[in-house]
Structure formats: C-alpha cells, structure tokens
C-alpha cells in the first residue's frame, strides 16, 4: 500500500478540501473498513453479548471475542484472556492502580516509604493514578529524568529503581517529543527488584510492532482511537497470573460468577474486569484497525512517517526563532515534532495555522511535569502519520514561516 491507497480508503481524506491533519497523536483518522466494522455490528449483529440465549447474542459475543483474539495476536500474545477491553488508555492505567489498592495480596502490597517510579515525561494519565496510589499508600513517587534529547540513561534507570521500588510506570513513546523510552531495560531492572511494570503504549502501537510478550512487562495499556480505531475502546494487557490475583474495581453486570444477597464471586479473567454491557461495536472497529495496520505494514508506516518528520524538521531549521524539543534525529521522533516559536505563544500559532486549515495541537499536552522540565509552559505539537503527504508538509512549513509576521514581528 502507498500513502495514496491509504488516503483513498479514508473518507476524511476524500473530502473536497480536507484539512491538513497533523494531530495524529491526539487521535487518528479512521479507514472506511474500521467504520464499516462498527456500522455492521450495529446493523446486523446488535445484541447484548454474553447474555442472550439466542443466536444473535451468540454472534455478538463471537464478534467481541474474535476482536480480543485479534488484539492479542497484534501484540504477539498467545492467551487472549490477558486482553481486557476498557474505554481508553487512561481507564486501563486507572484500572491497574485502583485494583492494586483494592487487592489484599502480598504481591500488590505497597507500604509507606516504598517507591513508585515514573518518568518525568509521562502523560498525566500515567502519572495521576500513581500520584494517587502513592498518596494513599504512603509510598514515595520517584522520577526518572531524561537528558535534553529525551533519553533515559542506564545510570538513571539503575539509580532510580531500587530494592524499595514496588511499581514502575513508563510510556513506551512520549506524547511530547516522540522519544522511545528504553522500556526493555526499565522492565529488566524493575523485574530484578521485584517491582510491577506498567507501560503506556498509547503513542507506540500505531508506529511500531509491539511484542508485548517479549517485553516482559506486567501491564501494557493503549487506546483504539490512536491506531486508526474508533474512540471509546481501549486495551489493557495484563499477565494472566496478576489479573487472576487482582480484585476488580468496577462491579455489576456480567463480571460475576455467583451472587448471593451478601456476597459474590467473580467471573474468570478477563471478564471480571469488564463490568456492564461492553463496547462490542468498538471492539469490532479495533479489530478492523489491527487488520488495516497489518495491511499497511510497519515498515511502510515507519518509512513514510520518518521521511515526513525529516521534511518538517528540515523546513523548521530554515526558520527564525524555532526550537524543536527532543532529539535532532527525525527517526527518533516517531512522527512527533514539538516546538516553540520565539515570542509567539503556542495557542496563537495553532490558531493562525487553523486559519489555513492546518490542525496541530498546542498546550501542555497533558504532560505538565515535562513542560516544567523543559522550562516552558506549553508548546506546539505537529504529529504525523503514514497517510500524511509531502504536499501537506510543504503547506504546513509555508504557513508556519509566516506566523511570526502575522504576530507582528
């Protein structure tokens, strides 16, 4: 497939004048096949999964469980019971944190003075649940700090993850500067001290083949809508033995085994974490998105994204007053180029680009500790995906070069 094939498969790009969409880290556009999978479920297979004693409910269940298998295969996981469907990355990570709090098992015990280790570049979704867990348990929240290019060094991993560390949470790829964190080393070190590991894969799954089994992490979270899927469906991978030991935090319909007036036993994993009617249409869409990404292939995705990122960064080098955050090497950005223009507030930059129908994000990107680390309040983020084109990059660079003038410089 080429970029033109992909654009042809996405209604958004078949509009007469589609905007230049460079906010792919926030959400991606959906191929027609994904939309069709969602619609087809609602049109022809719509029944409550698991509950009906009739064929249609069985078919709905089959679609939902087939999606689980598909996602498991996408992540190279052999046991689909380890895939829990949630609403999004945020819910997946909160699920882990809340379940740890509710579980009375030595494996999840966190005492006052223990350490929970995160990186300073975390998205708030992979920080606030751990802040809360630390506050409630009395544990100390410790930060691994990257160098100026966004890299967390071996020494930093060694010194921050210690014998008192009970849990380590890190993004696979930062949503601000796109840098891949050395999660293999982080996980290895965490395992050597007996700490649990939670990886936020929201920005990784659309850009690289994620082999969750080989990473050896305990939990891996991501959202469907950042990988060509629909909104409202997210994934939590959890190691089966851990999921079995954890108590759920949402209780109610379909997560039970047997209920008396006073007590209940829970359904086997993963269903004990999926209380209430599930998002089966969303799961169908996510399965279609996995297929679509496999069809494009990560080699093509990487090469197209890296080429465009290099063009963006080269174009920016020619301009006055631009600071790009993170590595100088475009291939270490995973399509994310966050930057500032001297004297121009990021919100103004985004609004001016919006006048030219260019969508970029401006603000703190829900990563305020990283903004503080960088010494800025906010920045502009241009994030690319495999369906973006050279022409779009040229238009973006052209409009960007005029922003300072509009701002009166």
């Amino acid at each position, binding site marked *: 497939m080429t970029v033109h094939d992909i654009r042809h498969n996405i209604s958004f790009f078949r509009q007469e004048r589609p905007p230049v969409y460079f906010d792919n880290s926030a959400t991606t556009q959906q191929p027609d096949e994904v939309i069709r999978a969602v619609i087809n479920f609602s049109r022809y297979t719509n029944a409550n999964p698991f509950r009906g004693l009739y064929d249609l409910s069985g078919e709905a269940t089959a679609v939902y469980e087939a999606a689980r298998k598909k996602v498991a295969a996408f992540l190279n996981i052999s046991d689909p019971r380890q895939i829990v469907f949630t609403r999004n990355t945020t819910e997946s990570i909160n699920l882990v944190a809340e379940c740890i709090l509710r579980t009375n098992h030595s494996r999840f015990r966190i005492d006052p003075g223990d350490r929970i280790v995160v990186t300073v570049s975390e998205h708030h979704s992979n920080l606030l649940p751990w802040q809360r867990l630390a506050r409630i348990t009395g544990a100390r929240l410790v930060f691994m700090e990257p160098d100026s290019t966004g890299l967390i060094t071996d020494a930093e991993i060694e010194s921050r993850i210690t014998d008192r560390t009970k849990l380590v949470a890190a993004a696979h790829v930062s949503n601000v500067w796109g840098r891949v964190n050395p999660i293999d080393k982080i996980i290895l070190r965490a395992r050597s001290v007996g700490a649990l590991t939670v990886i936020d894969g929201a920005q990784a799954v659309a850009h690289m083949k994620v082999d969750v089994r080989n990473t050896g992490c305990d939990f891996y979270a991501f959202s469907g809508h950042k990988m060509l899927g629909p909104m409202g469906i997210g994934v939590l991978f959890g190691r089966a033995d851990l999921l079995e030991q954890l108590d759920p935090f949402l209780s109610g319909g379909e997560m039970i085994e047997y209920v008396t007036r006073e007590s209940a036993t829970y359904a086997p994993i993963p269903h004990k974490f999926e209380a209430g009617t599930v998002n089966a249409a969303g799961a169908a869409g996510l399965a279609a998105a996995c297929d679509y990404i496999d069809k494009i292939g990560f080699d093509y995705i990487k090469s197209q994204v890296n080429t465009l990122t290099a063009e963006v960064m080269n174009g920016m080098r020619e301009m006055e007053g631009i600071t790009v955050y993170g590595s100088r090497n475009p291939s270490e950005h995973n399509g994310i180029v966050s930057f500032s223009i001297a004297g*121009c*507030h*990021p*919100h*103004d930059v985004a*609004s*001016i680009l*919006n*006048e030219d129908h260019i969508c970029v994000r*401006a*603000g*703190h990107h829900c990563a*305020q500790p990283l*903004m503080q680390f960088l010494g800025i*309040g*906010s920045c502009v983020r241009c994030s690319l995906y495999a369906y973006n084109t050279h022409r779009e990059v040229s238009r973006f660079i052209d409009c960007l070069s005029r922003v300072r003038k*509009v*701002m*009166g410089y």
Partner: protein
Amino acid sequence: MDLKNLYREIVNDHNLHPAHKYEMENPDIVLRGVNPTCGDDITLMLKIMDDTVTEGSFTGSSCAISTASADMMLDNVIGLKTDQARNLIRKFFGMIDGDITDDRELEALNDAACLKDIARMPARVKCALLGWSTLKDILG
C-alpha cells in the same frame, strides 16, 4: 474580521507592548487566574481607593489574545468605580457569549470590542476571558 487581521490590527499592539503588564508595588488586591486547559497563568493586581480602580496591572504567561484582552480590560477599568467596572465585565461576557451583538452597545468596551469575533472561535474564548474572569472574581 478574520483572525489574522485581528492579530494585525489590534491584538498585536497590546500583546507586543502591553501598557499594564508589570509588577505593581503594594497592590491592594492580587489574584491569580489560570486556564488549566492551556496552562495560561496570570496574576492581576489592583489598587482601589474610594471604590475606584486607581491602578491595575498583570504579570504572568499567556497567549496574545489573553494578554491583549487583559491589557485592553485594564485600559477600560482604570478610573472606573467598581460598579461601573462590574457593568463593563457583564458587557464583555455578553459579547463573548454572543448575547450582545449591537455595536453601539459595545462601544463602551473601546478596543476590547474587537474581540467580538472570538465568540465564533470556541477554542479561544477562554483566552479572551482569562483577565476578565479574574477581575470578576475580585470584584464579585
């Protein structure tokens, strides 16, 4: 007026050379206003004597629309009785909400009336309001 013209004609002047952006000595009231979605963070300082705003300034970090709006606001309210300032705030909110559209009614806002079109740019409404809502919190 489109956004680029808005920047060119009025906002940039107040953004690049804000007359009231400075740290005031011995203010009577200091209040911080924050826009959590974008991280804009300003501190508004006022001196009030005999129920009249005698001096006003602000510091902090904010976008051009937010900075210009706060600067134009202080241009307007310095010298006003607090009741008159409250009326002006109501008028500005009415304009941004799109409830007041009559240009004659908006004349009292002077330069700040140029932000009328922000009503059509939902993403920027909070920027235009930051200074004004902070002042509203002070005056009640």
